[in-house]
């Protein structure tokens, strides 16, 4: 049967997240997750927060996962992963548990990372567990129907930052999660996107090798939540990087580096115009956002020792 054939081939290619999942047509988050998993390799244990990726992959009694995977709640994934890591470590010391080296991975959306699970993440980073935390940032609570999160960009319209007579959409600035991670003195932080899979894989592998906590922030377009066509998830990633909306970089033991230098940033209009969530913004506001993005990119650049302009 052809499907079994497909599955076998996918497994042979190192896919750990199997088809038949319930993500929306054209979901960029599931694509990012799939790439991350593949780069991680099979000797992992995943703790996954409540959110799109959890719901679309585990309708009991079935699962899309080919690796050990645990989901408990929305806000506690890093803590669950702490337990997994510490448990394995204690058992290993006593000669029990899996024989191979196992990488412990926690995964969550921006809601569970920036908001409701921030504290459990902060605790886990602070304690120095040897694990990788991956944030799939689709800039909103998508699983529950596109509400704002503190990762939702300024001006974006969501069901809880709706456009209205008195409102232009989201009114706050996106929290700087990588900077928060940095405040925990962790050895590795990186940003990546599924449109840059080689870069992504390299960073995941680095995170795996470095001992201690790693924080990986993956840009994950959501066609449903952002109001885009179903075929542009990758294009949006490229545009986010090329416009400076989402700089690609890493920070190893406190030293910043851009892994893709954008000399001439593309105008953010190119990026925004594909998305219904920004459609209502006036030119003024867009210009203002444009200026902010440029300013932020300049700061990032300067931190990396790349001379500005």
């Amino acid at each position, binding site marked *: 049967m052809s499907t079994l054939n497909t599955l076998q081939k996918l497994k042979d290619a190192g896919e750990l997240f199997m088809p038949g999942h319930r993500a929306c047509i054209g979901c960029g988050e599931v694509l990012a997750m799939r790439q991350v998993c593949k780069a991680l390799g099979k000797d992992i244990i995943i703790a996954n927060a409540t959110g799109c990726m959890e719901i679309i992959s585990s309708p009991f009694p079935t699962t899309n996962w080919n690796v050990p995977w645990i*989901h408990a709640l929305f806000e506690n994934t890093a803590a669950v992963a702490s337990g997994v890591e510490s448990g394995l470590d204690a058992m290993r010391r006593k000669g029990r548990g899996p024989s191979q080296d196992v990488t412990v991975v926690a995964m969550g959306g921006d809601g569970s990372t920036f908001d409701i699970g921030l504290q459990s993440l902060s605790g886990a980073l602070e304690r120095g567990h040897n694990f990788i935390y991956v944030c799939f940032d689709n800039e909103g609570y998508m699983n529950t129907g596109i509400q704002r999160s503190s990762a939702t960009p300024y001006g974006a319209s969501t069901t809880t930052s709706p456009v209205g007579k008195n409102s232009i959409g989201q009114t706050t600035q996106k929290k700087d999660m990588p900077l928060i991670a940095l405040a925990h003195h962790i050895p590795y932080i990186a940003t990546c996107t599924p449109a840059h899979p080689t870069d992504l894989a390299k960073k995941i592998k680095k995170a795996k090798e470095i001992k201690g906590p790693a924080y990986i922030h993956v840009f994950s377009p959501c066609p449903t939540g952002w109001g885009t066509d179903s075929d542009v998830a990758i294009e949006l990633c490229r545009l986010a990087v090329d416009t400076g909306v989402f700089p690609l970089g890493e920070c190893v033991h406190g030293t910043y580096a851009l892994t893709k230098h954008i000399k001439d940033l593309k105008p953010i209009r190119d990026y925004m115009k594909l998305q219904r969530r920004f459609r209502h913004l006036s030119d003024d506001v867009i210009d203002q956002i444009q200026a902010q993005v440029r300013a932020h990119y300049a700061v990032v650049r300067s931190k990396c020792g790349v001379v500005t302009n």
Partner: protein
Amino acid sequence: MAKRVGAEGSFAVAEAVRLADTDVVAAYPITPQTHIVERLSEMVADGELKANFIYVESEHSAMSACLGSAAVGARTFTSTAGQGLELMHEVLYLASSMRLPIVMAVADRALSGPLNVWGDHSDAMATRECGWIQYFGENAQEVFDLTLCAFKIAEHHDVLFPVMVHMDGFHVSHVVEPYLLPDKEELGDFLPPIDYPYPLDPNKPITMGAFAPPAVYSECRKAQDVAVNSTHGTIENVWNEFAKRFGRQYKPIETHKTEDAETILVSIGSFNQMAGVAVDKLRSEGKKVGLVRIRLWRPFPLQAFRQAVKSAKNVVVFERSMTYGGTVGPVCAEVKSALYGIKDAPRIMDFIGGLGGRDMSPKQFEALFKRAQEIFDKNLDIQYETIGVRE
């Protein structure tokens, strides 16, 4: 060989955790549980306990880390109290539905507000639906014994449920008293190494915590309910095995002078000891009174309980927590549920006291019996009374 030592309940619990060769402790300090985590920290710092201590940033994370640790098959312990138990409330349900054999000691404490760090059972009672096995120890010896047993019960393949060992905050956790501390040798094979059957392991990938649509959620829940209710046998077996080896016998329901008792006091926790003194006193005055201690609270030992109060015309419940706006306190509600409709069901009166560290004395327990008698005699339609309160 067991050594007779003096220690507070908190330290006795810590010794049990050490003897169990626990792999992971994840806990957050809160009065009156702090001495447990402090003593365990010392043990780890000194290498007496070869565990990883996860210094979580909150109790929500404490229980969450326990989920993770237990899910890979590590022997896992935590402890908390009051607000801590409340803050992890949501996670408790996960531990039981995921069938993870976590052991938790709770130094029971009053709930805010107003803030109060002292003992009562409001924290415990607020968890009575969470699906854990729960029982109470009344002194240092009991909490030591019962913590040790908790690992064996939780990890038993016929059980696989988390176990909560309750002890009264301060009244047990902070009272130094003698207990027998066995050594490894005496422990022998009483507590075999943990062997969790479904660990997260890349060599056999499983999915834990899948979501259940309406089409199957009820089945999952019934399976869990039946499972927890069928742990009675194993719990008693473990306690019997413990008794054989160590000579101390625990039972789901324990009785004191109930044989011919017309009035039976039903209670939970360390105040039972003083209630026993009161019963002895009343017996010496010729009153037919007895005492029933509910040791196993969840799953509730319905038949044993009914058996224990069989002779009684009057049941007087004493409990240490309130149900604001409910008909009676939580223990009494369970007691009434258990006895509803049985033949010759006794009259029942509920007294609520000992809240937020308010002390009780044997004399007050004597007074309870008398007040209950009055209420029964006059046939007053009173569901419960709050006692020891300045009027």
